[in-house]
């Protein structure tokens, strides 16, 4: 789906006005590999929901789909589970970000060293040129 469409849909989603069908399409989009870079921050959120959603079918929190019986205490417990998963997702994204920053710093350090080496080489070259110049001056003096 196009970036602008998803962005608009996200706006509606954050206003709490999306239908279940629209929310499903958002989940499908954010759990795919086609997410636009500008929307990357939201991947963590939908990933957390996806994991929590899978988790609920494994344990005792499974919803009785036939009767739609769902007690408030179950919802509270489930909310705790989703909180835990979301916190883990936040920490995971922070770890990735820290690793990326570390990589960027290492690259910066490497570039600095490279620049230093290049500057050294340039200085050597300049020195050599000045020696050549001096040689040329002296040579011209004696070989006129």
């Amino acid at each position: 789906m196009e970036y602008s469409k998803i962005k608009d849909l996200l706006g509606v989603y954050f206003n709490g006005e999306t239908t279940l069908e629209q929310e499903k399409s958002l989940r499908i989009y954010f759990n795919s590999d086609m997410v636009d870079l500008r929307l990357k921050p939201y991947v963590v959120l939908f990933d957390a929901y996806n994991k929590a959603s899978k988790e609920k079918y494994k344990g005792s929190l499974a919803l009785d789909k036939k009767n739609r019986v769902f007690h408030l205490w179950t919802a509270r417990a489930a909310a705790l589970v989703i909180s835990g998963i979301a916190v883990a997702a936040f920490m995971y994204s922070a770890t990735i970000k820290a690793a990326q920053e570390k990589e960027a710093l290492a690259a910066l350090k490497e570039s600095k060293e490279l620049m230093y080496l290049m500057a050294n080489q340039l200085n050597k070259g300049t020195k050599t040129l000045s020696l050549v110049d001096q040689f040329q001056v002296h040579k011209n003096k004696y070989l006129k």
Partner: protein
Amino acid sequence: METLPEQQKVILHLRDVEQLSFSEIAKITNTSQANVRVSLSRARKKIKDLLLIQYNYGVQ
């Protein structure tokens, strides 16, 4: 997420994880559908703000 009020956490869970309709959530939480929508919107906006802070500045 921990900073969300209990009601908002429950509604967010029922909608985004359990994928229940507004009427079902209203029945479970013993509130009106309008209240459900307002709580859901507030919860999602808080999460959005947290996500953007997290993404832009790392762990707070």
